[in-house]
Structure formats: structure tokens, C-alpha cells
């Protein structure tokens, strides 16, 4: 049909008078007068067709393991806590670790996986594997067959070790592997291997500032710290996206726990999941810091607040990670210092500005006695939290506030 319009256009170009026009008009297919209503009806039908139909639902393109569940005959002898049998897997994780009792037999386990809609997995969900030989690799393929993800599932018999002092020196850091845009840190575990217990909100910052260089992120390494490398937290401007969303700044933060990128935009206070299971009694929290507040504290709307100086946060909390009903408890940005689950808190409180490395040494203040059995069953969690703007969770702070920390120690106390 479109050729008629092209012919009309061509004819229009060539015509010199209206006699010719009429002739051209008829020549290009309109000589049969009945044809016009047919063409017209055709136009209408075509338009309606374009507008009215929805195609079949597209196949899923996601390839995630969403949850992993281990079913065993006597869970009490296998898991530290009943809730340990099921794990919800973050979209950013591809390593899934079950820490189970040291005496658990992991030679024949059949993890049950739930996947993205329509996705398939190999080896199959529910198939039996020997986890004593190391992790089992699962490959998930999306429903449309175009995307794949590889997961490593570890089931690790874990001995509850007694440590006197936990050291965090921030010497092990690298660019996040998939994007290469920001830094992440590894801590040295008691057995000398590297763990990823430290979390930052750098991944959330990337959503609003895709062009930022790694050293322009809120949490960055500092090559020359108090001893070796240190970590620096800087309150950053979140750019045009941040202004649009009324989230104008991102305080630099670093904490023991996990950062849930999934809800970084929709529910940021719950994206910071503070705490890792901890089987000792923390007694003192020490380290070295520098803190230089940014020039101007701004409120939620970005307006300067005259006469106010930004403050930083340096604290550690020890809490019961299950409630009375046996449900798992994680502390978040909005209750980490106020939850009734708290057992002990070591809070530096006012972080005095200083440009030179300054030591802190804070004693944990216990609110209740520690249950020995619960401690052995990984029923307590520990969180260490640093932030360059204490009110950063409310998007209040001074852009440029900079807190650097190094040589952090957690000194534990044992029963005599």
C-alpha cells in the first residue's frame, strides 16, 4: 500500500499543472474508484491491529538461585540454629556458604534450590553431592536459554574457635570484579584465609553515579594509613539522580555485615544488614582514626545548616541474632543502636575532629549476661560500624566529611 504514497509523492514533484495532476493521480492506481474505500478501510484496520494486540508473554531471562535449603534427618545436630537450614541468596552473590556444626557429616547432601521463573539448573535441585570435597558448582540457565550464572555452594563444618583479639588492618582490597568501578575489602580470618565480612554501600552509590572513578566513591582505600593501608570514608554528593530522589549525599560507610543492593533504592536503611555471627565475648574496641568534617552541613533538601559541624560514627554492637520466637534478627540502619536485641555496645560517641592519627579504646558496656550455650550455637552477632556522617542515613551531613580508620582491634574476654 505504501507504494501508492510514494507514487503520489513522485507524481507531485513532477506535475506542472492540474491537468497533469489529475492524470498522475489516476495513473498511480486510483483509476478504479472502488479502490479508495478499500485502501481507507485497510488503513484503519492496520492501525487498530497495531494498537490492540499483546504478544505472548516473553520467556524469563533471569538465571538466579533465589534460595537454597538443606534438609537433613536431625537438624539440631547439623545446624547451629534451626534457621540456618535455608538461605536467601542475594542477586549479587555467587558463592553460598552454609556454616554447620563441626561434627556434621557433609558427605551426602541434597540441596533444594528455588530458581528464577522458568530457569533450569544443572546439577538438578535435590541431587545428592559430597560437600566434604569442597564446593559444588551449579549452573543456572534462564528460561529463554540466553543467560547463565554459575554458583558455588559450600557446606563447611565450622569449629567454634576461641580468639583473643580480632585484627582488622584493611590491607586486602581490590576492585569489585564484575564492574571494576569500586573497591571492596577482605579481612584476614583466624586461619589466615580471607573472608568478606566487611561491607560498604559503594554498590549503591554506583547506581546514582555511574561515571564516578573508584577513588571518588564514598569508601576508598588509603595507601598510607597509620600502619600500611587504611580505609577512608568520605561523604559524597550523589549527583543529579540523588537530587531528583532527594537523596543528596552518601556518607562513606563500612561495617561487618552485608549490603543488600536490592533495596538500596527503595528502602536504604534496611539495605545495611549489620552483623556477622560471633562466638566470643567482645570486651574492648580499639583503633586509630582521623576525622575532618566537611565545610557545610546540609539538610535533607540540600540547604546549608549554619553553625553545625558534621559528626562521624565509630561503634561496635553485640546482639542476639534470634528473637524469643526463634526468628532470625538482623539489625539495620534504623535500629542498630536502639534494638532490644542488643547485648553490649562500644560507642566512641563524639568523634573529635583531628587530622593526625588518633587512638580510641572503648570498653563494651554489657546490658545483659551472655548465654554460654547460645554463644556456642552462633546465636550472637557482632557489628562494627564506621560512617563519615552520623546522620547520613537521613541524608543529612557535610559533603567532604572524611573519616579514616586503621588498625582496628576487637579484644575478647574469656571466662576465668
Amino acid at each position: 500500500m505504501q507504494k501508492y504514497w510514494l507514487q503520489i509523492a513522485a507524481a507531485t514533484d513532477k506535475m506542472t499543472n492540474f491537468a497533469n495532476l489529475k492524470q498522475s493521480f489516476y495513473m498511480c492506481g486510483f483509476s478504479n474508484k472502488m479502490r479508495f474505500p478499500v485502501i481507507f478501510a485497510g488503513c484503519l484496520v492496520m492501525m487498530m491491529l497495531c494498537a490492540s494486540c499483546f504478544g505472548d508473554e516473553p520467556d524469563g531471562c533471569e538465571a538466579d538461585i533465589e534460595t537454597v535449603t538443606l534438609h537433613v534427618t536431625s537438624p539440631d545436630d547439623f545446624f547451629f540454629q534451626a534457621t540456618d537450614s535455608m538461605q536467601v541468596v542475594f542477586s549479587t552473590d555467587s558463592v553460598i556458604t552454609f556454616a554447620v556444626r563441626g561434627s556434621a557429616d557433609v558427605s551426602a547432601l541434597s540441596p533444594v534450590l528455588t530458581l528464577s521463573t522458568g530457569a533450569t539448573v544443572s546439577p538438578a535441585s535435590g541431587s545428592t553431592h559430597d560437600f566434604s570435597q569442597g564446593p559444588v558448582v551449579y549452573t543456572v540457565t534462564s528460561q529463554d536459554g540466553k543467560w547463565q550464572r554459575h554458583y558455588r555452594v559450600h557446606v563447611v563444618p565450622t569449629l567454634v574457635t576461641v580468639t583473643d583479639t580480632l585484627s582488622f588492618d584493611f590491607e586486602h582490597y581490590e576492585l569489585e570484579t564484575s564492574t571494576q568501578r569500586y573497591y571492596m575489602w577482605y579481612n584476614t580470618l583466624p586461619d589466615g584465609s580471607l573472608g568478606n565480612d566487611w561491607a560498604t554501600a559503594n554498590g549503591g552509590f554506583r547506581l546514582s553515579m555511574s561515571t564516578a572513578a573508584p577513588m571518588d566513591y564514598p569508601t576508598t582505600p588509603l595507601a598510607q594509613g597509620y600502619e600500611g593501608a587504611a580505609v577512608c570514608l568520605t561523604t559524597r554528593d550523589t549527583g543529579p539522580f540523588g537530587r531528583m530522589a532527594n537523596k543528596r549525599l552518601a556518607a562513606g560507610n563500612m561495617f561487618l555485615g552485608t549490603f543488600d543492593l536490592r533495596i538500596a533504592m527503595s528502602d536504604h536503611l534496611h539495605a545495611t544488614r549489620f552483623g556477622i555471627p560471633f562466638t566470643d565475648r567482645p570486651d574492648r574496641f580499639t583503633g586509630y582514626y582521623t576525622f575532618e568534617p566537611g565545610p557545610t552541613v546540609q539538610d535533607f533538601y540540600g540547604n546549608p545548616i549554619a553553625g553545625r559541624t558534621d559528626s562521624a560514627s565509630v561503634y561496635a554492637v553485640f546482639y542476639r541474632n534470634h528473637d524469643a520466637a526463634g526468628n532470625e534478627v538482623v539489625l539495620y540502619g534504623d535500629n542498630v543502636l536502639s534494638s532490644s536485641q542488643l547485648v553490649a555496645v562500644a560507642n566512641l560517641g563524639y568523634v573529635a575532629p583531628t587530622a593526625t592519627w588518633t587512638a580510641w579504646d572503648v570498653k563494651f558496656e554489657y546490658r545483659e549476661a551472655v548465654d554460654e550455650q547460645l554463644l556456642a550455637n552462633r546465636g550472637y552477632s557482632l557489628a562494627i560500624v564506621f560512617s563519615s556522617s552520623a546522620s547520613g542515613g537521613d541524608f543529612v551531613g557535610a559533603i567532604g566529611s572524611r573519616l579514616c580508620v586503621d588498625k582496628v582491634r576487637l579484644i575478647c574476654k574469656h571466662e576465668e
Partner: protein
Amino acid sequence: MIMSIKRFISAMLFITVLVMGVNASVLDSLSYDVRLGYALGGTIPTHIGKEIRGINSYYPGFNFTVAAEASYPLDQRWSLHSGLRFELGSMDADSRVKNYDIEVVRGDESLKGIFNGNVRIKSAQRRITLPIQAEYRISDKWTARCGVFMGWLTNRRFWGWAYDGYLREGTPVGPKVEMGTEPGDRGDFDFDANMRHMQWGIDGGIDWRFSRRWGAFAEVTYGFSNIFKSDFHSVQPLRPLYGTLGIIYRIK
């Protein structure tokens, strides 16, 4: 921008002169009318892809059209029909999507990926249109028209937000980021600057003349050109599609 408008108006005048002004006697045989119409519609994807799973709501805006048009009879049945239309177009559509490619841009920063959830789209534009149509007289009262149009947007807005769903950042296996419902929690976008000025397409309609001076018309317009510039890939190509109902007053 001003230069572009001038160029466009010159082009339209040139075409008008070409089509109608060649022979002085043409003017005598022309019939003129003015039209006032109300349009329902907006922009639709090139083909409604599988990605769009349903329409939650659709609100047409305040879409008036004012037109001055003329017909030149070629014979007993056929005429050539043209004119100038001034159109206000707007819409507010809320749809449910799956595996929807989206890129949100703000300044130098962008966030893109595959979105599953709901997308609210609002658009508003002012347009000057030049239609060139073949008109067929079915009876004394009824005529049908079909042809092409060229349009120029003098004012254009296109904005909205992705909400109540989640984005797979970058690719379908990238990090999952939930988008909430409230401003700040959802993914807002604003693509005014990425819209084309020029549009072209086909339109057709039916006129019903119920008295010597007065009549009514119904018209459907479908744009062949994407409303966005060719280098813009944030959302899939969209084309104008709308229907207009209105009244005709014949001057001559």
C-alpha cells in the same frame, strides 16, 4: 531552533503552493472549512512488544485540535484535501512490563538494565501538522479521506517513572535493584530533549455533513516516525497513534 521552524514553514508553503497554487483558477474551485476536534490517543510502541504485558490505566489529556482545511475537486468523486492543523496532545499511560529495556539518564549519569514491573509514561506536545489527503465523496453527506501528514513539534515533554518492580542492572543477570512507588524510591526519567521535532505518517477520516455549513468528522492518525531521535535507545521506539472526533464548519 528558530531557523528550523522557519525552514519548516517555508517547506510547507512551498508544498502548498506546489499543490494548490499552480493555476489561478484552482482558488475558485476550492472549498474551505474550519475544524475543531478532540483527540484520544497518544504514543504506542512500534509494535506492542511482548515486553508490555498489560495496561493498568490510560488517561487522555486535554487534546484539542484546531484546523483550517481546504479541498480541491479533481472530478465528481475525488478531491485533494490539505490544510494546517494545530494540535495539543498529551497522555498518561500506566502499563505493566516484563523484560523491558530501560535506561534512565540524568545529566552525565545513567542507569540502565532490564525492568520488570510497572511503567508510568506521561507526554505532552504541541504540534503543527500539514496533511495531504485524497478525498472521496461517498454521497452528498459522507466523504472519506486518507493521506499522509508532516508535523512539527513546537513543544514537547516526555517523562515518567518505573515503579513497583525491579531492575536487573546492566543485563538480566546483573544486580537486582527494587524500585518502590514513591518519588525517590522509584526510577524517574525525563526524555524531553530526546524527542524529534519532525513527525510524519498517515491519517484517514470520515466527514459527515449534516447541514449546509455544519458537519462532524472522525479521523485516525498514525505516525511512521519514532517520536524519539534515532540515537536514543532508553525506551523502545514509540509512534503517535490517536483518533480525533470533532465538528466542521464550512466557510465556502
